[in-house]
Structures are given as structure tokens and as C-alpha cells.
């Protein structure tokens, strides 16, 4: 599979999270777990600093979490000007109880009502587009009670 993000690489990270983006681009939300000691290791690393293993397995998981923190941006900053038309937009740091509290960043989707620390959110995956710099992205949506 030809991945969009690989043709629009953003430098700056340690480069260990390629499988995260590949997964998202295939429609799978997955995080790395150390193959040696089974610890969730996020952000992705090349080596487990706890047990010394160089092997990780990427485990698909349900994108269910709670809002750990958030901010609403009112300014089109230089390197994210693609989102100018969406201002103000909310970015959420979501904590995932299913992955030992790993925190994953994503832009809020849908109604903002109830936006606060501790609110339950569920992720959906957006395909690569200009706004996300041709990377796939996880979008966090506030979980609403089922009607009735």
C-alpha cells in the first residue's frame, strides 16, 4: 500500500510512530506494546527503556477514552494555516484507559457541549487531507447518552 503520509513526511519526531500512521491510514487505531514486558509504550519508541526489548507489537484497540486536556485555538499559526477556515477549533488530549492511560492527540469532532476534562470521547478516523497535512488523523467526539 502506498501511504499518503510517507509522501508528506513531517520531520521532528523520533520516527518510531510510522506504524501508528500506517494503521490509521488503513482505518485501524493501534498503539505499540513492548513484546518483552507487555507495557504500552506511547509515544512510540525504538527500545523499551524498562526491559530493554527492541521489539514491539502494534495492537488494535477501541478508541474509547476520556478528555485529559484540551485547547481551543483562535489563531492560524504558521505551520497549521490549513485550518484557518475552522478557527476556532478544539484539539483534545485523550487518555486511553485501555492502553494504561496513553494519551493521544486529536481534533474534536462534532458538538462541543460537555467539553471538559474527564468527559468520555470516542475516536473516528479521518483519511489524509490538506488540513491534517496529508496524514490520516484520529478525531475525538464527545460520547452522548443513547436517546431513550
Amino acid at each position, binding site marked *: 500500500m502506498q501511504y499518503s*503520509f510517507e509522501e508528506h513526511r*513531517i*520531520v*521532528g*519526531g*523520533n520516527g518510531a*510512530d510510522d506504524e501508528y*500512521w500506517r494503521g490509521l491510514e488503513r482505518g485501524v487505531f493501534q498503539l505499540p506494546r513492548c513484546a518483552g514486558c507487555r507495557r504500552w509504550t*506511547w*509515544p512510540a519508541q525504538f527500545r523499551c527503556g524498562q526491559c530493554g526489548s527492541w521489539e514491539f507489537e502494534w495492537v488494535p484497540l477501541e478508541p474509547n477514552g476520556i478528555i*485529559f*486536556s*484540551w*485547547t*481551543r*485555538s*483562535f*489563531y492560524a*499559526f*504558521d*505551520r*497549521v494555516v490549513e*485550518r484557518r477556515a*475552522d478557527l*476556532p*477549533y478544539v*484539539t483534545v*488530549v485523550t487518555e486511553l484507559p485501555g492502553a494504561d*492511560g*496513553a*494519551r*493521544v*492527540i*486529536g*481534533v474534536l469532532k462534532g458538538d462541543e457541549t460537555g467539553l*471538559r*476534562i474527564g468527559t468520555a470521547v470516542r475516536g473516528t478516523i479521518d483519511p489524509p487531507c490538506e*488540513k*491534517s*497535512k496529508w*496524514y490520516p*488523523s484520529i478525531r475525538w467526539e464527545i460520547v452522548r447518552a443513547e436517546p431513550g
Partner: protein
Amino acid sequence: MSALRGRTAIVGVGQTPYYKRGTSPDSDVKLALRAIVAACEDAGIDPRDVDGFVSYASERSDAPRLMAALGTREVRFPALAWIHGGGIPGALGLAGTAIVAGQADVVVVYRSMAERVGQRLRVNVAQNDTTAQYLVNGIESPVQILALRAQRLMQADGVPRSALRAVTRASYYHARNNPRAVGRQTNLDDETYDGARMIADPYKLFDCSRENDGACAVLIVSAERARTLARKPAYILSAPMGTLEGGGALEENWRSYYATAGQAGLARRLWAESGYGPEDVDVAQVYMNNNAMGIGALIDHGFCTAENAGEFLTFENLIAPGGALPINTSGGDLAEGFIHGMGLVAEAVRQLRGDSPNPVPNAQLSLMTGGPGDWMSSTCLLGTEDTL
């Protein structure tokens, strides 16, 4: 106590005028030369004798670009403290370590910025190390990243808006007496603060540092040599740098801390190495990329807790001459201007000499904290001869 305690001192300070970003008539290299030569003149040391050059972050004016214009006899110790504004006090520590180890005699620590020839500081400061996890999700500027922490500091830990307002108002109050301060004309009353536009929730305009063109340099020599010079030495009592386990480049996944500055471990080292504690400090220059992070630094250093921050961080408590802990007495990063925080070092020294624009009477212990919330940070305690 450490082997470095009081062994070196800052003996010269040089600062160019501060310009609105992108408007300096001089390039960053020329600004660096101006500040370094001014620091040498202040100390009474020939610029040719500077043999150590230390800076931090993305400084472009390195020793090779400066030495011909300074007439440098020999560069013996060129070094850069890693990371961003977290490296400033660490740069002082690096300079002091080099001198004590015999690797240099006269070390200048400096930072120069001119955005006309460089880049926007908020881009430059990040050294292109902002990761895809942020940029893909609309997060680029340090103010947005630090807003995530501030949200947590305020909503989860309970630090009130009044504390943010107080540190900002104290900074602008001090700037009024500082001819260099870019924000000296701004009368920052509650209404102006509250009415400012939102940048990244919860940060409004006056919660944010500025970006300016300019340069600042300080000169460091051994304590023995410092005693022979004209200026009253500001001795480096301790200047630890580093990060505890659970810190580093973790994309919002810090576990041992989150909303504060990540300086608790550094502060423990600072107090242990210097033999002093927060109750002894007379005046503090607190790096404020954003004001809530500076509050995090004060919490990490033990001046207050998240629980009592609202009571402790009042305008009256934070202003010179009589406040319990006067902070950012030149106006600091918010109101004096922002040469990536380097101006705070100059002001920390001036307080011990007594020539601050807002002097704290008989100040003996002067604190300068580095970039809070940085992947790695540092902090520094300066003292007079009597504190050794």
C-alpha cells in the same frame, strides 16, 4: 553543597535595545557582538580575552561567526545547552563548570535574535522538532501546547485565573520603570487583561510572552578573578539542568508531572546544592513563555502549591520593593520583551548589584528559572558575597 557552589560569578552584563520583532536594523550576529562587547565593557575585560562561548536552543551566532570581530585570541570552550528556553540557567552552569575545570577563563553566555534574517521565534525556538502528532492535529505554537497544560493546571489542579492575572499585572507594573521594556506604555489594569482576545484557550493575549529582536550577554569568570573586577559579583550558587524519569520528548504523556514546569527535581537539586530554600529567596526572575507555566515553576520550586496559589500569587505579593516574592522586576518575558528569556539573567544580576529598574532593597539571593514545561529545563540561584 556542590563543588561548583560560589566558584564562579557573573561580572558583566550587556543588552542591546529591544526591537519589535523583525524590525532590528542590525542582524543577529551584530546584535550578539554589541551585547558581548557591552558585557565586556561592563566587566572591564578585553573582548579579545573571552575564550568561552555558551548559548542554548537555536542560537545562530556561534563562536566561529563572532571571533574575528571580537579579536578572539583563542576559543577554548564553545558549547550549546540543549533544548529550548529550558537551557538558559543550564548554560550558566555549563560556563561555570568549564571555568572550574580549567577549560576556559572568561565565558560569555548569550542569545541573539533578529527575525528579519532569522525566523519567527515560535518556529525557530522549536528547531523544527514539533512532531507530526501535534502538527497533524492543528497544534503548532508553543502557546497552544502550553495551553493544554494550563487548562489542566486551572481546571484539574485549581489554580485560579486571578493568579495568572496577578503575575501578568506585576510584570507590566515593573516594566513601567524600565526604559528598555517594550510593554512599558501598557497600563495593564484588570479590564485590559480580561478584555484581551483569546489566543489558545485558556491563554489570552497578555498571558503570552512577546517576541523581540535584540541580544543579551553575561560574562562569567572565576570567583577569584571576580573579586578583582569593578562590578559587584553575582556568584553562581547552583545551576542544575536536566529531567527526571517520565520527562523528555513525550508528546503530552508526562506522568510524573504534567501541568507544572517539570522543575521539581531541579529545584530539589538547587536547594541542596546552594544550601538555601524558597523562603530565603529575595527576588525571582521566572521564565514565562506563558504565565501559567511560570506559576508551575513557582509551584515546583516550593513557593506555593496549586492549592494556595490563588492566595500567594497576588499583585501586592509579586511587586518590588515590598512584596513577599517580587518577580520579573524588569517586566520579564511578558512585558520587557523576549530574547528567548535571556534578559531574565541580566535582571537577576542587576538585583544583586542594586541597579535594577525596580530594586528589591538589600537583595542577597536572586533566582532565575529556565523555560518551564520544556522537555528539559534548568534553574539557577545567584547570590552576593555574603551568601557564600
